[in-house]
């Protein structure tokens, strides 16, 4: 069906009849996301000050290799080429980064903020050509559910870190005992916020029950679907809150490790 659609003149980039400050929202998204990206990349390359006592920065968890503390596989692999920068964070960060990059909410937000596609609703675009997520490269966004599987595993790793963050070693006696510090609370908040974000994932919503048209016959599935739908309604808020928190946990632990801040023990 070839339709001849004659329209009014196409609007130029940034042209709109909207009188409101439409550019503020994409500008805020652009600023926050690029700052996060800049900080996370910098922090991931540091390979130092990522832990303090029983606290481990979420950027470095799970800790695969480490010279300083207990890790899955011990120190940095022997055959690692000297010219290639090494940091255990670089090995694991692609998973959470891919999860956020392919997240339906973030996609819509960064297409606007970084690619002006469109800059904001009903505002003119810079390019005439458009392929959307129909062909390469953006058709690859459809891998999102695979990143989700990793994200669910990461929730487990981060929960183990929280458990560890509750056990402090007495420097005098070397005895481990239960306690809660500000760092513990931050790491708990991090898992809660990341959990809220991950459990509201659109792909998860589909996989736990969204793909079924008659959920009434499967009450457990229906419950799971309703629960994910509930988180999903606030997906945007969970996305931003968890982004802030994960970065702040790294900053906090880095500051403790640098000796600039001091952890306050509540228990």
């Amino acid at each position, binding site marked *: *069906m*070839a*339709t001849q*659609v*004659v*329209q*009014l003149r*196409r*609007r130029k980039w940034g042209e*709109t*009849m*909207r*009188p409101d400050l439409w550019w503020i929202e994409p500008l805020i998204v652009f600023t926050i996301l690029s700052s996060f990206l800049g900080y996370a990349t910098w922090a991931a390359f540091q390979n130092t000050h990522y832990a303090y006592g029983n606290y481990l920065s979420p950027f470095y968890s799970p800790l695969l290799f480490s010279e300083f503390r207990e890790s899955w596989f011990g120190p940095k692999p022997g055959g690692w080429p000297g010219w290639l920068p090494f940091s255990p964070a670089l090995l694991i960060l692609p998973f959470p980064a891919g999860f956020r990059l392919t997240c*339906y*909410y973030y*996609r*819509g937000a960064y*297409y*606007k903020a970084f690619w002006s*596609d*469109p800059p904001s*609703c*009903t505002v*003119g*675009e810079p390019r*005439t050509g*458009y*392929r*959307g*997520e*129909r*062909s390469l490269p*953006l*058709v690859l966004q*459809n*891998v*999102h*559910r695979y990143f989700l599987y990793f994200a669910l595993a990461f929730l487990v790793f981060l929960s183990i870190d929280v458990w560890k963050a509750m056990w402090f070693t007495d420097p005098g006696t070397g005895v481990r005992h239960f306690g809660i510090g500000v760092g513990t609370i931050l790491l708990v908040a991090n898992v809660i916020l990341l959990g809220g974000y991950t459990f509201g994932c*659109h*792909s998860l*919503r*589909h996989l736990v029950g*969204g*793909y079924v*048209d*008659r*959920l*009434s*016959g499967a009450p457990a599935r*229906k419950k799971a679907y309703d629960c994910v739908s509930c988180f*999903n*309604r606030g*997906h945007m808020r969970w996305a931003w809150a968890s982004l802030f928190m994960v970065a702040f946990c790294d900053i906090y632990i880095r500051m403790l490790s640098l000796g600039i801040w001091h952890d306050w023990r509540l228990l």
Partner: protein
Amino acid sequence: MTAGGTTSVSREIVESGQRAAERSGESAGGESKRAAFRVWRGDSSGGAFEEYTTSVSEGMVVLDAIHQIQAESANDLAVRWNCKAGKCGSCSAEVNGMPRLMCMTRLNDLDLEKAVTVEPMRAFPPVRDLVTDVSWNFAVKKRIAKFKPRIPDAPDGTWRMAQSDVDRVQEFRKCIECFLCQDTCHVLRDHQKHDEFIGPRFLVHVAALEMHPLDIENRAAELRQAYGIGYCNITKCCTRVCPENITITDNAIIPLKERVVDEHYDPLRRLVRLFRRKS
């Protein structure tokens, strides 16, 4: 189109509007306010904004003001409307750059210090003034695979459905076909992919069919190819303008995208299906 046909009706509205204005003026003890409107006048060969002023009073909507302008200073101004209650979806236009139902856009929600712009929808060909030709939408609807129910559950040819299963598609059935979502979608509005993309309104329609507890048709292949769901880049502009508050992107489009992933982009699922078929 109601350029001439509604003049008497609009006159009544004008008069009742003026009476209301007088009343509100009396009770508030103030004078009636005047506001400026920049209305797009033209047809498919081109056009321009023309400015009109008219008196406005409390409770008026943009459509009232347009009718007043039509009655007072532009008798040939073409505008389509029907119910004045936000239910027929005829009075769609762009008010201050945003797709809105003129009959549901209250003047006291707008900044009347500046002229209010009123223009036709941009995703469809202009017919005259505020009226556009939305017939493309009806042609699109015909292309969508129809509702195909499973064989009846009872010998008398009837079906049994659980309310909770129907609830999910109920939201999509609120659509009044105002096509504001189609208008705001940049895939149609800016990139004019009318031949390859059915637009948010019809993705909502497909969702209503596809998620219906009785329907057994599978539209995943069409969604991917003929309906062009991959063009949607989930910017949620459609959801933002829907006067029926349908959560178009989150509840209709994304779940459909996930169903397309199931069938076309998930290698593990494909493998599982392959084995299931063999066994």
